């Protein structure tokens, strides 16, 4: 169903895809999407939604690497809309960000996106106007590679999202008025006495004073929570029992996409080992894990090979444990996997906050979850790669993938399959970007300046830029750069993985490298919708130098 059956004859041969309910795959060069305001009753009462072709999620788009796609998007609403092709490398005026790449799609208008597809893998698309992404305007993109990779028996999209009970504008207004509005896991008087029992009186008092002095809450893991969100798999609540079919012994590829506005998920499939084979659409050296965290807007391709004829749960807990999405990988549609018992949330620690305040601790290289057993290769790998990227290569060649099962996927485990030689040597430019915010007033920013007050970041075409993100806040920030890859510096040298979203944890410092090989104006922002909307956003301009100086560079 997903695989292309016939070779493309002519790029000019336009085949119009008919999307019926978004379930049907489309193989064509020209795609049409109609954006409408719909009323849907997902949670038992009618709610306004913004949908493509009336479908939640929007239809899955199947493209082929090397083809020229044409996407005609019609706006049937009374307000402006837009579609952004998330993670896709394309000319900047096709990127779909109103006010940066184009003017948006006015009511009644059709905008034609046209660009060559130069990559393969799992991506997604979503609205980039107002809160339309939160209202249901998102869908999966699957791009078949020119040279097919290892075949699988089944290939499924697992698209996670968060569906709010309230209108998203109202949600934002509530956060502006009371930023802890959605936190119903705050520490109570009862917790105070429990902590005294656990930690002792003075330690507990010292802890409360330390948090109190900062005016922060260690339970503040998510701004918007299960108090208003219903968590969905392919548009379905846990109660709707979404199923994916399999037969024992089959090799199944699950393409996880986190299309949430605000929710990071911890994903596991009890009873199954998951082999992560791609991150953000790009192949990585396989890593076997029991669990992985998927930040907002990330994608991970995972292989599973269930051997037993039983239902396996696909369980995605919200990071703050305020809810979950659940589906079943099952031999029969009427056999549903059990929902695992809830786990307590992990509180923020004062150490993380110390990182946020000092701004220089917790670098990604040093990051290691406490639950992870010591990996004798890890330190060595990182070291070798740092000293000489080619040493990292040798290491990688000798060790294709890791055989040990990691309890939890770590960014450090991600290793590109093909090396990027352009990452050698020192970068042309270094830019430090502090991730900042005012949780109390719900204002988010880079370097303490909101988008509306900020100048664009300008870099030169052909430059290699090293961005260092210093998270000075207590929230996670998935940083998304449009049009250009971010090579995460996780100590793998030329094998550093390239991603479109880099999650930066509270208090953490992470460096990425960007090859400015695409001219134009690009959006650069935190992908938490309400952070982006309140100012954590920049315009990045890649420009050719007007003078001859650029020739020296190239």
């Amino acid at each position, binding site marked *: 169903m997903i695989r292309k059956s016939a070779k493309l004859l002519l790029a000019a041969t336009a085949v119009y895809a008919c999307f019926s309910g978004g379930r049907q795959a489309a193989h064509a060069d020209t795609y049409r999407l109609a954006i409408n305001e719909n009323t849907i009753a997902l949670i038992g009462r009618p709610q306004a939604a913004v949908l493509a072709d009336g479908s939640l999620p929007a239809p899955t788009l199947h493209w082929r690497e090397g083809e020229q796609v044409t996407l005609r998007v019609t706006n049937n609403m009374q307000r*402006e809309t837009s579609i952004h092709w998330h993670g896709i490398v394309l000319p900047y005026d096709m990127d779909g960000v*109103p006010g940066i790449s184009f003017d*948006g799609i006015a009511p009644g208008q059709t905008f034609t996106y046209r660009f060559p597809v130069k990559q393969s893998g799992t991506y997604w698309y979503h609205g980039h106007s*107002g809160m339309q992404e939160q209202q249901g305007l998102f869908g999966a993109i699957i791009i078949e590679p020119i040279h097919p990779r290892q075949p699988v028996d089944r290939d499924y999209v697992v698209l996670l999202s968060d569906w709010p009970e309230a209108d998203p504008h109202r949600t934002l207004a509530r956060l502006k*008025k009371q930023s802890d509005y959605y936190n119903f896991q705050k*520490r109570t008087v009862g917790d105070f006495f429990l902590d005294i029992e656990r930690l002792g009186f003075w330690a507990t008092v010292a802890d409360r004073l330390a948090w109190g002095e900062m005016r922060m809450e260690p339970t503040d893991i998510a701004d918007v929570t299960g108090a208003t969100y219903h968590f969905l798999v392919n548009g379905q609540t846990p109660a709707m029992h979404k199923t994916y079919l399999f037969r024992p012994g089959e090799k199944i590829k699950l393409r996880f996409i986190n299309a949430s506005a605000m929710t990071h998920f911890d994903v596991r499939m009890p009873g199954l080992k998951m082999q992560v084979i791609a991150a953000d659409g790009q192949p990585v050296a396989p890593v076997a894990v029991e669990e992985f965290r998927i930040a907002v807007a990330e994608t991970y391709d995972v292989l599973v090979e269930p051997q037993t004829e039983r239902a396996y749960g696909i369980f995605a807990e919200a990071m703050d444990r305020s809810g979950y999405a659940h589906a079943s990988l099952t031999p029969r549609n009427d056999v549903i996997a059990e929902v695992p018992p809830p786990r307590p949330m992990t509180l923020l620690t004062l150490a993380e906050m110390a990182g946020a305040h000092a701004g220089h601790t917790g670098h990604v290289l040093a990051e290691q979850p406490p639950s992870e057993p010591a990996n004798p290769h890890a330190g060595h790998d990182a070291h070798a790669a740092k000293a000489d990227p080619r040493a990292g290569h040798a290491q990688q060649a000798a060790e294709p993938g890791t055989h040990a099962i990691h309890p939890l996927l770590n960014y450090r485990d991600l290793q590109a399959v093909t090396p990027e030689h352009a990452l050698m040597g020192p970068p042309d430019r270094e830019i430090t970007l502090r991730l900042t915010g005012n949780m*109390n007033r719900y204002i988010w920013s880079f370097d303490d300046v909101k988008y509306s007050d900020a100048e664009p970041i300008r870099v030169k075409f052909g430059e290699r830029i090293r961005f260092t993100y210093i998270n000075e806040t207590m929230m996670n920030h998935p940083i998304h750069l449009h049009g250009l890859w971010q090579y995460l510096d996780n100590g793998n040298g030329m094998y550093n993985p390239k991603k479109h979203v880099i999650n930066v944890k509270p208090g953490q410092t992470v460096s990425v490298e960007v090859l400015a090989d695409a001219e134009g104006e690009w*959006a650069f922002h935190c992908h938490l919708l309400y952070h982006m909307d309140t*100012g954590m*956003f920049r315009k990045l301009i890649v420009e050719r130098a007007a003078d001859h100086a650029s020739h020296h560079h190239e």
Partner: protein
Amino acid sequence: MPATIMNKVARLLLLAVLANPAQAQDDDGIFSHFKAERLEYETNGGLQLFKWDVQHWIGNDEHKLWLKTEGDYAGDQGIFGRADLQLLYSRNIDSFWDFQFGARRAFEPERTYDAVIGFQGLAPYFIEVDSALFISENGNVLGRLTLGYEILLTQRLILAPRIELNLSARDMQNRAVKAGITEFEAGLRLRYEIEREFAPYIGVDYVEEQSLLEHQHSLRGVMGIRVWY
């Protein structure tokens, strides 16, 4: 710098008038917040008071127009004991603080105008602070300080102690005001947040008043609702 502020204000007014443009990143939006911290009935048997403490702001992250009104009405006597309205410009000056200035119109017990200057925000250890100096027409300085705190018994059952202090720098014969602490209120309210926006409560208030005419103190029971949108 003043030009920048003027720019900002002009932009703010423009945004308020124009329809919200559907940009992906409109981070300068106008919000409006009405909050009746206290709408309550207060009694100690003899005394029967209806009290209000209401604030409303409208503006963006940096600039706000802020209205505050407080007062009480004696139901049995049919008179207002105290009632005033403040109209303030509020400027966000720090993560947790706003600087405010404007005017106060007192309706009861005397009809007066005062200039207002103050700070409002969240102090360390989560103490809500609302402070103001009132400069009267004849140059006397009055002060008001309100401190609030919240203790979570559960996620929705919240115990909220509160202290309000009213001060005067000098005696004011026309208002019967005596220099020093003119009014001290210490209260404890237990509210249940049915919704974040809607919470009925019960509580007690200890009130001590000192004027040129009398000194009185009393313990009162209160019941009311806290409501905002």
